[in-house]
Structures are given as structure tokens and as C-alpha cells.
């Protein structure tokens, strides 16, 4: 197991922040696939995706880079995997990454600073459901009050993602203690080893023995392929087009054009939707003005009957006699 991605489970559990600090800045460099032409760095930051481990991530990144290299003429795509948000963010700022596969949750938490050009899919869907997994003996959400609940660290607004987006504001702020893990598998493992009573992970995460799903939570978009910077429109268009033809039997098995508004919706869900009491409008019947209108009489003056019976000369008159 690659320590840069595996949870530190040795001895007493270290604080999550310390683990993240160890991993910061470490990347898995991969040699260019072909010499000559322009080199495009394909970054990959997907901590909330349910890849089983670094090798699976690397294999996926390599396959995607190869595909794009093959499809986008004159460009060689080099995969670069980031294990924490700050490393990815810093690389992006420095212009080291031009295009990246990023967790949608992270992008949304950052306010969508990157331009999405394709949405990852699994079995045709660009969404993935999240779930609450528990160890033996837990049968309801209420039993988790005050407990530690593990989750994959997203890199920004983790709590908002969990409480607002996944639990729909149903949990009070002090309902449980959230404990971050480097990825979904690590979060699930924390339950398996008793370091957490439950974990919130995407569906598809391999669960350790004795850990089972208790609740299905809200869903969230799968990772997005986004332009980080340094690409012209034609290249962006070529990459987006090339991504659509990517296919692989994996956690992500393809791409489709990004659905408009889907990521924006996630941004909104991150905000607190506090349930506020509402005023009742005054029924208009309470504003009865009936006393003012009493004794009103309405009448229309009928037409003078002789004028009805004998229309004026320019009228057509009485019609034809029925025979």
C-alpha cells in the first residue's frame, strides 16, 4: 500500500491534519508517453472517488492520458496524481497543470473555478449516490448521536458537503463528530477497525468485513474533466471531444458533456438551508367590508320595449316569416 494514500492506522490514530501534511506536495510522476509535440499535464485530484487504491488511480490516469494523446493530435498528455487539495491548488496556480480530473465536490466547494469540459460517468450516470455505512450493532441514525463519523476528505467545505448536501440539513451542528480520511476506502476501514462508528462514503466503495450500509444519502456528481489553464479553445474543444470517446471498465467508465447547472446545484446544496418558520397571510375574508356595501342596489335599465319590438329604420328588423 502506498503510504501517501493509505490511512495511517498504526498505533494511536494521528490527527487527520497531520496525515494530510505528510502527503502534501507528493505526486506520482509518470514519464511522457511519446517524445516530441506539446506536453499537457493531466492532473487528477479525486479523494472522494471510490478508487480502491493508488494503483487503480494510476492505471486510470494513464489510460485516460494515453487516450487523449492518441486523440488530440500534436499533444502528449502526462498524468499527475495529487493526494491533497493544497498540492493540487498550488500546482494549478503555478500553471503546472493544464487539464485535470477533479472531484466535483471539491470543485463545487471552491466555487467552480475550473471550466468543466466533460462529466465522468459510471454505467451511463454522471451522479453517484452516497451512503452511511455502520459497524455491527447500529440500526438507526438516532443511535449515532454524539458518535464519530468518518468521511473522505474533500479538501474544502467538508462539513457543508456532509451536513447540507448529503444530510439535507437534517443533522444539528453538534449531532456527531466528523473525522476525515484520505479516501472513501480509508473512511470505511475506520469503521471496520472501530475508529469510527459510521462513515459517509460514495456507493461503490469497497467495504471491510462487518461494515454495512445503513442509509442511502443524497447523490452528488462524479468527477469532472476540467480545464485548469494554458489551453487554447481549439485544444480545449479537441480534448473535450476526445474525452467523450474514452471508455474503460473502471470506477469511471467514460465521459459525457457536462450537464448544465448540475455542478451549480451542488454549490447551492453546500449552503445551509435553515428551516425558518413562516408567517400566515391574513385571509382576505378577515378584511370584510360588507357593512360598507350594505343596501346597495344594482339594476340595469331595460331597453324601451317599443324600441326592441320596432327596431330603428337602419336595422334589419324582425327577420323572415317562418312558413
Amino acid at each position, binding site marked *: 500500500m502506498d503510504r501517501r494514500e493509505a490511512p495511517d492506522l498504526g498505533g494511536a490514530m494521528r490527527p487527520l491534519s497531520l496525515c494530510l501534511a505528510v502527503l502534501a506536495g507528493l505526486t506520482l510522476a509518470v514519464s511522457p508517453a511519446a517524445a516530441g509535440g506539446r506536453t499537457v499535464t493531466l492532473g487528477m485530484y479525486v479523494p472522494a472517488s471510490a478508487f480502491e487504491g493508488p494503483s487503480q488511480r494510476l492505471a486510470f490516469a494513464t489510460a485516460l492520458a494515453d487516450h487523449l494523446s492518441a486523440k488530440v493530435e500534436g499533444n502528449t498528455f502526462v498524468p499527475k496524481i495529487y493526494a491533497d487539495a493544497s498540492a493540487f491548488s498550488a500546482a494549478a496556480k503555478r500553471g503546472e497543470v493544464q487539464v485535470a480530473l477533479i472531484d466535483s465536490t471539491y470543485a463545487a466547494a471552491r466555487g467552480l473555478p475550473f471550466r468543466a469540459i466533460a462529466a465522468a460517468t459510471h454505467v451511463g450516470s454522471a451522479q453517484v449516490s452516497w451512503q452511511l455505512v455502520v459497524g455491527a450493532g447500529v440500526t438507526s441514525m438516532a443511535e449515532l448521536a454524539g458518535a464519530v463519523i468518518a468521511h473522505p476528505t474533500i479538501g474544502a467545505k467538508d462539513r457543508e458537503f456532509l451536513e447540507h448536501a448529503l444530510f439535507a440539513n437534517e443533522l*444539528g451542528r453538534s449531532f456527531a463528530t466528523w473525522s476525515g480520511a484520505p479516501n472513501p476506502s480509508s473512511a470505511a476501514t475506520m469503521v471496520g477497525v472501530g475508529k469510527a462508528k459510521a462513515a459517509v462514503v460514495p456507493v461503490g466503495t469497497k467495504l471491510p468485513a462487518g461494515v454495512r450500509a445503513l442509509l442511502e444519502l443524497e447523490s452528488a456528481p462524479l468527477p469532472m474533466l476540467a480545464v485548469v489553464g494554458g489551453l487554447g479553445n481549439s485544444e480545449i474543444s479537441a480534448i473535450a471531444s476526445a474525452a467523450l470517446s474514452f471508455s474503460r471498465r473502471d470506477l469511471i467508465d467514460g465521459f459525457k458533456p457536462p450537464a448544465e447547472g448540475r455542478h451549480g446545484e451542488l454549490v447551492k446544496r453546500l449552503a445551509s438551508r435553515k428551516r*425558518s418558520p413562516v*408567517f*400566515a397571510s391574513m385571509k*382576505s375574508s378577515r378584511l370584510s367590508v360588507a357593512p360598507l356595501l350594505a343596501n346597495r342596489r344594482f339594476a340595469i335599465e331595460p331597453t*324601451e320595449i*317599443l324600441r326592441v319590438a320596432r327596431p330603428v329604420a337602419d336595422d334589419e328588423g*324582425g327577420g323572415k316569416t317562418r312558413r
Partner: protein
Amino acid sequence: MRRRDGRLLLLASLLLAVPLLSVLGAPAPAHAQRADDETDVLVSAARAAIARADYDQAANLLDRALALNPRRIDAYVLRATVLGVRGQNVEAVALLRRAQTLAPTNGDVLAALGAKLVAAGEPVAGLELLEQVVAREPRRYEAHAVLAVEFRRLGDHPRAIASLQAYLAARPASLAGRDRFYRLGLAESLLRSGEPAKARDLYLEVLLDDPTHPLARLGRAWATAALNCRLAMGMLRELGDLVDEVPAIELVRGRCALRLGRTTEGLALAKSYLGRDPSGAEGHALLGEAELASGNIKAALGSLARAAQAAPDNKNYLLALARAERQNGDPASAAKRLGATEPPAERRVEWTVELAEALTATERSDEALALLEPLRSSEADDARVFAALGLAAVALAKPAQAIADLSRAHELAPDDTRIKGPLAILLREAAAEALRTGDLATARARLERATAAVPDADSFRTLAAIALALGDARAALGPAEAASALVDDPVTLHVLARVYQALDRDTDARRTFAAASSSKRPLSRSSRDALAIDQAAFELASGDAVAAVEALAKVAADKQPSSRVTEALVVAARAAANDDLARGEFSTALRQLERAHDKLAVNAPGMLRDALECDLALAATGAGDRKRAQALLRSLAKRRASCELAPPADTVAVAILDTWVGGMVLSRAKAALKTLDSLGRKATGPARPLLDIAARDIAHRAAASSFDQGAWRAASDYLELAARYGKLSAEEQHNAAVVELALGKTVSAISQLERLTREVPEALLNLGIAYENRGDQVRALDYFERAAKAKLRHPGLAGWIAAKRRIWGGP
């Protein structure tokens, strides 16, 4: 009857033999001659020879007697008789003249001489002599017999009738067996003299003795035809066995058929008759009249012209021809033709009337009147005369005279369409004139007479309207229904609906108004407007203001509806909105009133506009349409308009509403409430509730706005202020609890909200939130679900329920 009829000629010839037969059958004269025995023997033998028709022997014996005794007068008479039998009338006259010389006053001689003079071709002398005889000896029946035959031959039927009646009265019983002959003659003369009833009785007497007697059958049918064509038709048909001998049967049948209006039958009989006698004038005349009756005037003219040509002296044909000419549009020719000829005595009136009509048609009505005036008194019971007088008066533009004369004609001939039509038209015009002057009673009387003459929808409809205008709805019903039975036009249905309405037959009125308004027949705009207005007036009076608005919708949709329509629409819309306003359904009232306001013309009467806009302002204020209400109130205030509200609200309403609308904005709520406080001094009586409502609404809106801004305390204060203007409503109490909830007083809020869940559905939602705040997810879910079941509209509620069920468990 035709003089040339074969049977009658035969009868006439038989009658000429009457003197001979009567003499033969008569007893010897009373004054016996003194003669010798031989003369007596000879005369007696001669009588016996005559009796056995041995005239040669009789002549011989009588010649011998006269030779023995030249003064034997009876022998002269007998000898003259024998000469007559042999046709030697001149010789008989000469012989009798000798006898007259011997006995100048002898009645037998004079009677025989008279008869022989007639037979010898000297009728004038013969008749004169015979008349002297009967004058001196009225019971000299043989003289009467000869006179009767001769008068009949001369066509002098009145004198023939007198002679025949005298004969029948005087003849000896021994001659009774020959009475049938004289009765038939008498019947024919009576018939020809215009006494068909008496003639028919005589024919019937004959038929009692001999039901198959052809002449009597013929005569009875003829006489009956003169009396009653309907009765005669059967008899005439039964004369089929005589038609070949007497073709005139077809003529009489044809005329009767025409008189009965059986034009086709008349045509067929005329043609059949013409087949027997192609050149006969009577056939062409009958055909012409049949063609005239069938409307084929051109053909009639041809036929009648042929009849007139064939019998130029027949004035009947001239008359018929002239009538056809007039009807063919050539009254001038008709007038000329009739004016040039003296009318026949028996058809003088008809002739004069026809000439007058022709003159009227050629704009010579004065001449027509001059011709007709003398007949006014002499023919006081002749409808034709008064009809012609009336028509001439019409042409001379004397409607009153025309009505009087045509009315008299109509009285005399109630079924005559030539009279009824013009009379009805005149009466209708006269009624219209009376209506123009406002004389409803006269107009009504005239129209009643007009409809009695010719039922017509317009007149019935007007009659109904007059009766309604006179307040007599019961009397209006008959004419109104009669009119609608004749026509199905919307105007007539409109009048009928008004009659039903006046009779409180609302269901019928509604149905009839609906039928009128859905009629596909064309209707002028003013009639269409009147119909819609009256339908709306009816619905409004029935208490259905919405139906009244609907009734006006179609005409109000015109690009520029008439002012009457707009005014009616305003009234109906205000009435419909009035109920909505009273129920507090301000938005509905607003929509209703706005539709009417859209149609209000710029120059609409001020009071109408003020009333509508006042109601609109009230509705807009109640509905919370601040912008609209302000615009209206500003306009009303500028015009210093008073509203149609119970005083003193009529004068202070605009100010109260204006303050109300102004105070709907939070920033102005306090100032508005202060203004209302100051207006409170004026707002007494029915105005007070308006002020209270305004103040409460302002305070409540301010509370809501404050709450939305998170100013819980301010919201609470405003709600307390609202309570000053009346008991807090359930909503206001609820909102006070909501403020407490927001302020964190959850327990108190829950307690109050739970009391209000029935009246205020929002309480359920707020209770859910309150329990959620307390961490009681189960009760929170329960209240959310109850809120949803109460159909409370809240954008997040369905999602909340779903999330709660998913996370905390539930059904």
C-alpha cells in the same frame, strides 16, 4: 242555362202544341149555338173525329156544318183547330177572322185567333189579343198556355212565369196529367229569372214522380249550382249519362269547380268541353277563367279574347277579358274596354267595380271614386264595391277613408284575401303613425284589427310590446307567442323573453333570452346591444350578477362598445364584484371590475366612472395591489369623487383607502397608522370598520415585513398594534406565536400553535420546525406530513419530509 239546349228546344216545341191539346181536351164552349139538328149532328161527329185524330173526316164534317149554318161559331173554332194541326195557320187565321166578324167578343174565337196569329208568325198581334182575352177572362187557361210558350220563346221569363202560374191555377182538373210539362217550363223560367230556390223545388216535385226525368235532374243540378256549388258538384257528376247530349253540364261543373277553388278540375273540364265544341265561346271563356284562376294570365288573355271574338255581344266575356287585362298589368286596356260598353243589367255592379279598379290602377282614382260612390248606398252589402272604394282611396292617399271602406268590405267578405291584405297593411301603417305620436291605445286597436285580418309577426310583436309598455303583461303574452310561432328571429324572441320576464316566468325568460342571443340570424348592432342589455338586466334582477356580466361579454368585446353596453357592463360588473368584495374576495372582484373598466370610454358619465373606480380602488387595496390602488385613489381624490358607500364612508373612504395603500410599505406603516388615528374622528358608523380593517392590515403587513427582515421584536410590536383595532384573527395569533418561535420561546410557541392548527395550516409547518429545533424528529416529521396533507403550499416541504423519512426513518 243555355237557350240552345236540345232538350229545352224540344220542350219549347211541345209547348207550342199546348193550345191545340188544351182545346182538344177542353169541354165545348158554354154558349151553345142554336142550329138545326143536322148541324148539331155534323159538329158532334167532327168532335169525335178530332178526338180520334181523324182530321180529314173532321174537316169534311165541319165544312158541311158551316155550309148548313155559316153562323155556327164553334164550328169555326173547331175547323181552325184542324187547319192548325195541319200547319195551315194562315187559313186558320182567315177562318177565325170570319168568326170574329160574326162574334166579335166571343172569347173562344179571340183565344183561338190569338193562338193562330202567333202560330202564323204574327206574335205581336197574337199576344196582344191573348192578353186582352186573359185580362177579361183570367181563367182562360188555354190563352195562358199560349202566352207562356210565346213569352218563354221571347226570353221574357217574368211574364212567362206569370202565364204558367195562371195556367196551372186555372186549368181544369182533367188536364192535371199534363202539369209536369208546365211545371218544368215554370222551373226553367224561374231559374232564368234568378230564382233558383223556387226552381229547384219545382224540379224536386217532378223528380218525386219520376226520379230519372232527365230535364228535372238537369234542372235540379242547375238550380243547385246557382245556390251552392259544393252541393251541386255531386249532382253534376251524376249527370254523366247526359253529357253527350248536354255538354253544358261540363261548363256548369267547370264554373262550379272554379268557384270552389278547384282550378285544376276547372281547367280539365274546360278542355273537355272545348273538345266537344272547339269553337264555342263558352268553352274558351271557361278555359280563360280557369287559366286566370291558376295564375296563367297570358293564356287566360288568349282564351278570353277567343271567347269575346266568338261571341262579341257577350258582355260577360268582355268583363272577364278586361279583368285578365288588368291582372296582366294592362289596366288601361281594361278600362278602355269596359268604359266603351254599357254594362249588362245583371252584372252592372261587378262591371262597375272592375272598371273602377282598372281606373284606379291607371291613376284615375278620382274617376273610379265617381263611378263607385253611387253604389255606396245602393250596394251597401256588396264587399266588392267597398273593396274597390278602399283601393281607390288608398291610391288617393286617403288612408282613413281607405281603412273605413276596406273594413266594411272585410266585414262583408271576411275571407277575401284581396281585401284583407291591403286592409292589414293600411292598419299597420296607421298603427305606426299612432305609435309615432305616442298614442299607444290607438296603435294597439289598429294592430289588433290588422292581425285579425292578416296574422303577421311584426304586428304581433309590436302588439306585445305595446301591451307591455301599457303595463299589461298578460295581454302581451298571446301576441308575443303568436309572433314567435310565425318567425324565429332574435328580435321576436327578445320581446317574448321580456314578456315572460314581466310575468315572472323566469325559467321561460332565461331560456328565451338564451335562444335569442344564440340565434344565427343577422341582427343589427343596436338590436344585439339591446338584447344583451336586457338579458343582463333580467339576470341582474334575478340576482345573478355574474350571468349578467356574461350576457354582456359578447357585445362588450366589440372594439368600441356602445355607451349603453358599457354602462350596463359597469353596473353588472359592480354587482358581481359587490358580492366578492363583501366576502373579502378582493382579487376576484378586482379582475371583474378591471374588465368593465377597460371598456369604459373616456367620456363616460362621471358618476359611473366614480362608482366603478371607487369599487376598483377598494378591491385593489384589499387585494394588495398597491400600485393600482394608488393610481385610482389619486385620480379619485383629484376629482373629489364621492364613493357609493354607506355614509359617511362615501366621503372618507378615499382618504382611508389612500392611507391604507400608503401604509402597506413598512417604512410608511407607522405614519399611516397615525393618519388613520386622526381620520378616526370622521370615520363613524359604517366607515369605522373600513378604518379598522385598514389599520389592522397595515399593522399586519408591517409585522410580516419586519419578520421577513429578521426584526422579530418589531414584528411583535406591530402585531400588538393590530390588536388595538379589533380582536386578533387566527392568522395574527399564529403569527404572534411564530415571532415567539423565532425569538426562541419554543415551548410557548408550540402551545399557541397547537391551538391554531385547524384554522391556520401554516401552524402545522411551524410546529414541525419547532419540534425539529427541539430535536424531536419524529414529531417534526408528523407535523410536516400533516401540513402536506392540509395542502399547505411551501417550496421545501416535500423535500423536508423525504429527507426526514430517509434519515430518521418513517413510512
